[in-house]
């Protein structure tokens, strides 16, 4: 409980520090959607590995996805639309690439507990969508291939 309150405050400071950064991208919708999709894929991969490591964070992960269902759903839809002109398999290739990227990470019990705590914080019904955005931007790098020039 105390940890949660502290983390929430720290994450709020993260939001404040990143607000200006996000508004400057030439393709903010796709950039944001791509990172949200990648974040969800990473968390899923980690939760599956953690289950094998003895830390079952899948219920927490599911709650996190449920709390931000609209956000995750919108990001998924946006990426499907983005890849639609390139053919029906383009999104699948993209998703497979992300899964491969996080398919072989180093996961142990300690890391799993950290991820579980993070997912739990984001799963809170009171979790602000801006916090999810800040965490996503902190953890997921800007995908290559997007034209998002730095602020002049």
């Amino acid at each position, binding site marked *: 409980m*105390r*940890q949660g*309150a*502290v*983390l*929430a*405050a*720290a*994450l*709020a*400071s*993260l*939001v*404040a*520090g*990143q607000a200006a950064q996000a508004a400057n991208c030439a393709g903010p919708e*796709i950039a944001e959607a*791509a990172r949200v999709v*990648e974040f969800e894929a*990473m968390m899923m*991969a*980690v939760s599956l590995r953690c289950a094998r490591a003895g830390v079952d964070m899948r219920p927490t992960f599911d709650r996190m996805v449920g709390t931000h269902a609209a956000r995750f759903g919108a990001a998924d839809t946006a990426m499907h639309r983005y*890849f*639609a*002109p*390139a053919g029906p398999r*383009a999104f699948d290739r*993209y998703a497979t*690439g*992300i899964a*491969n*990227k*996080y*398919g*072989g*990470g*180093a*996961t*142990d*019990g*300690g*890391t799993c*507990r*950290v*991820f579980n*705590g*993070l997912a739990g914080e984001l799963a809170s019904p*009171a979790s602000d969508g801006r916090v999810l955005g*800040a*965490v996503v*931007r*902190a*953890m*997921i*790098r*800007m*995908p*290559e*291939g*997007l034209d998002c020039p730095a602020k002049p």
Partner: protein
Amino acid sequence: MDGIGRMASGLSRKRLCLTAALTLGWLAMAPLAQAQGVPQAANGVGSPFELAFWQSVGNGEDPALYEAYLQQYPTGTFAPIARAKVAALRKAATTVAAPAPAPQVALPAASPVAPAEPTPVSTPRPAGNGPALAMAMPMPLPAAPGAPLPSPAASAASGAMLGQMLAELARSQETPGAGATSLPPAVAAVSPVSSRHALPARPQLAPVPDLTLPTSFCSADERNRFHDGIYAPALEAAKRNNDAAVAYLTQLQGIYDGYQLGRDTEAMNALAAESRSYQADAAATFSAQAAMVRTFDALMAVPVRPCGAAR
């Protein structure tokens, strides 16, 4: 700086340290795994968190940050450096006649003028999973729901620190050797190939009139007039359409083969897709022309009957 200013500054620094320490305290579960025999990272640092912690301390001039690191990692990779830094900063602080009080961050492991010693600090670590640094702090926990957030400067600093740690956390879950996610541009069937090369415009096809042959001609001259005035223009339109379609496909092939696009696979794929997409149109123009050519034989086969006779 007046007294209030100093107090505010000290409070700000204290909150910064506390916020950072508590955040790291929450993340202290990861170093617990280190104590349980988790192998070191490839760079020799105990864990990504230790590295992130140390990087967050950076080249700061606040001894409390280094003490916080020592509290968390008393035998850490950077512990000797941290002790030396603390000693130097404390020494410098005592030589400067600064009336401002030192930050009131009470860390039992550090003496205000502790010399740099190679032996690790023997501060007992908490046995549970609670935040280690939070337990060492005599101050109440901030940021309960509704509580005021730290000052903007403290927020930015602690936010940057947390962001760095989250980034390290995510990197630790990447498959070794995996680079940044590449998001290829979605290429439509008809769209600019790239910023340097664009698909040529599809040719405008002329309408080809439907050709209905009469059952008979009044005379050979009438057949000739039909040929010249109706059939020949229709045949010409069909031929032009087919020629344009062939030229378009040839143009696409030429661009595809062009040396400029030798390394631009996305552009080549787009050209190939457009070529495939246009095949049906090109086939239709060829069929129309072929049908018009075959119609010539049918035109010549239309019988000539004297005018006034049944047609």
